[in-house]
């Protein structure tokens, strides 16, 4: 498990760095897909099997196809590819990001382990993230946010159609 964690973590971080630093937007999208796949693998190591499947289907499948489609549809000129901000700003952003992570590591976060006290703490870990458990939670304890999500998706669909429509 530790072996899988380290491999997936390194792949996720390197791919995420490539997303942010790559000149070519198409390559960025493909590295983002790699990040999402390794995150799905990390979900599996946390026994969240259903979420891992959803991560691959929805994120790596649907959302990234949308991104790839838009990148290729816009067909940007190559001089727009390398578009980072001015160098001092770049250095400042990198330092802030590295400082934030260093602060967490110095603060002792890597060894942190919260006490298992939730309602499912006594269950075997494989059962907690199963499709059955998530489904029954969605339709009982969390039915209201689930319904609001359906409404949100409807609004987003209508909004996207209205925005993409050509004015005449």
């Amino acid at each position: 498990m530790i072996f899988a964690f380290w491999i997936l973590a390194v792949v996720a971080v390197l791919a995420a760095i490539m997303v942010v630093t790559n000149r070519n937007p198409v390559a960025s999208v493909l590295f983002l897909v790699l990040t999402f796949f390794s995150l799905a693998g990390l979900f599996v190591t946390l026994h969240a099997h259903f979420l891992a499947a959803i991560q691959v289907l929805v994120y790596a499948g649907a959302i990234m196809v949308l991104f790839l489609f838009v990148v290729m549809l816009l067909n940007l000129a190559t001089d727009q590819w390398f578009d980072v901000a001015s160098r001092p700003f770049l250095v400042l952003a990198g330092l802030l990001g590295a400082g934030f992570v260093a602060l967490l590591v110095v603060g002792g976060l890597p060894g942190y382990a919260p006490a298992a006290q939730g309602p499912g703490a006594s269950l075997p870990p494989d059962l907690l993230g199963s499709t059955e458990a998530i489904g029954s939670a969605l339709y009982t304890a969390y039915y209201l946010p689930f319904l609001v999500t359906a409404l949100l998706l409807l609004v987003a669909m209508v909004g996207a159609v209205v925005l993409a429509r050509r004015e005449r």
Partner: protein
Amino acid sequence: MVPAGHYLVLSAILFAIGVVGVLTRKNAIIVFMSIEIMLNAANLTFVTFASAMGDLGGQVAVLLVIAVAAAEAAVGLAIIVAMFRHRETVNVESFNVMHG
């Protein structure tokens, strides 16, 4: 068993990479992808706490975040395409139609 803190630090690293991307890139699509990285970092934190504490609420929250991210990507990319039609660029610095 990997301690929960390892996952939390990984999530913080991914979030920081996303923040750096939003701050330094000017291509609106790349900025959008950086936001997706940050959303995923938050998802990883949710799943970590859900499995470490034995509470399913975190996994349900991730499901809702994924739905929100899908909606956000659809609307945001539609806005980018609409702006591209007006300006012939996706540089965020040229997206200033809301200036007073």
